[in-house]
């Protein structure tokens, strides 16, 4: 067990590798109740999120999820989050544990400054279980048969409310599955039912190797308040083309992309780790997250690299004072059980 932003959480329940493979090949579950559900409700809720978030909430519609960064005035990433449109005027955000308090303060201050009719409510009464893997949906339907009708029709990145349960077809593993927000009082019984159905409990360790293989960023490692989303591979989530104004837009327009954010695969043995230096033909870069990929049997990393780096290049990574060759690739490394690089 480790302390994670004030939450006591398991790194693994026995073996991180077993947990990782369970998610890639069958089904695993994560207690992610450390992440905070924040409801944003009011007649100005859409306008508020449209001004607050780098991605365009106006593209969203009821039942649809949107991944976005929330930026500060200098264009740094305050947090990355998912926002679900429940109905027009009612939105549900899921934010990182480490940034919950600062996110809430930031959002409430913006809402007040902009004089908008919006209520921001952290839902500390809700817990979240993420069930992931090729058989994840079938397992959820087995233990929650009443959810089946409403969630069978869900496309990826969509959500539905079923009684007390808010069920989203989203995740952080690169596999299919559901993230289920529910009253904290009921989370123990749902966990036990899934356990009895044969779902493998998974800790923070497997969560990290799975998200890295899936090429998904981790807040605090791959980007933070000092890093532009354009330098963290998140340009696809930043809407700079429309005339919509949002916090951080002016700063991003004034300071274009300075780094390529790409993947690395180590050619030989060893493990890539955060903060290892990368040497490319035209400059240096740095690994922001690295690990051993259990699916590939090789070390992989996400890295900020000089602008001219491209997929297919060979670079050198410094590990314990020695340089090792690594191949530059475009993430994701693994999706839906398949190696893509």
């Amino acid at each position, binding site marked *: 067990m480790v302390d994670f932003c004030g939450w006591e959480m398991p*790194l*693994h329940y026995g*073996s*991180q*590798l077993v947990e990782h493979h369970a998610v890639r090949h069958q089904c695993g579950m994560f207690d992610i109740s450390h992440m905070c559900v924040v409801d944003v409700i009011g007649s100005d809720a859409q306008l508020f999120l449209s001004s607050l978030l780098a991605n365009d909430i106006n593209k969203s519609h009821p039942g649809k999820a949107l991944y976005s960064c929330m930026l500060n005035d200098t264009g740094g990433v305050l947090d990355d989050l998912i926002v679900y449109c429940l109905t027009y005027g009612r939105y549900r955000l899921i934010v990182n544990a480490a940034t919950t308090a600062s996110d809430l303060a930031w959002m409430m201050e913006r809402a007040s400054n902009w004089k908008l009719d919006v209520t921001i409510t952290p839902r500390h009464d809700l817990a979240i279980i993420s069930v992931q893997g090729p058989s994840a949906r079938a397992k959820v339907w087995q233990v929650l048969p009443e959810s089946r009708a409403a969630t069978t029709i869900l496309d990826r990145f969509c959500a539905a409310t079923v009684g007390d349960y808010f069920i989203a077809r989203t995740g952080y593993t690169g596999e299919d599955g559901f993230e289920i927000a529910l009253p904290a009082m009921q989370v123990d019984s749902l966990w036990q039912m899934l356990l009895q159905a044969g779902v493998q409990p998974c800790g923070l*360790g497997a969560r990290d*190797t799975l998200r890295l293989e899936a090429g998904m960023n981790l807040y605090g490692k791959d980007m933070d308040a000092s890093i532009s989303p354009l330098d963290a591979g998140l340009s696809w989530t930043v809407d700079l083309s429309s005339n919509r104004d949002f916090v951080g837009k002016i700063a991003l327009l004034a300071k274009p992309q300075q780094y390529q954010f790409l993947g690395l695969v180590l050619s030989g*043995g*060893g*493990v890539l*780790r955060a903060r290892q230096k990368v040497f490319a033909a035209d400059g240096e870069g740095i690994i922001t997250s690295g*690990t*051993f990929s*259990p699916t590939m049997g090789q*070390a992989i990393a996400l890295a900020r690299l000089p602008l001219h780096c491209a997929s297919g290049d060979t670079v050198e990574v410094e590990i*314990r004072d020695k340089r090792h060759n690594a191949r530059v690739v475009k993430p994701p490394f693994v999706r839906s059980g398949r190696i893509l690089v």
Partner: protein
Amino acid sequence: MPNIPAELKYTRSHEWARLEADGTVTVGITDHAQEMLGDLVFIELPEIGSHVIAGKEVAVVESVKAASDIYAPLGGTISTVNQAVAKAPEQVNQGAYSAWLFKIQPENTADLNELLDAAAYMQEIGS
């Protein structure tokens, strides 16, 4: 509770050492160490014939979670390395006392007496 065989010698940095009949000393990491590191995925072994100094790093084991240096329990020359564990690092998780890492031809066999016995190592790791 971690497994700490009574017949072995130990270091504070979690290596075990065993004097063999041929005079070499076999070295591995303890059950407690593999437990703390979690699933091992990479092992970098020393070169055969290299000279090692007691307390200095000679090898590296890496788990998914972290890299950890392995220190020489005593000075001497590396006489053999276990290539099988380099190919399959999970062997160390499966049996820390059978999956040895390397053997040292010691400069002075009496240096073994400087190491911890099982009772002292158990106390060291607080179990």
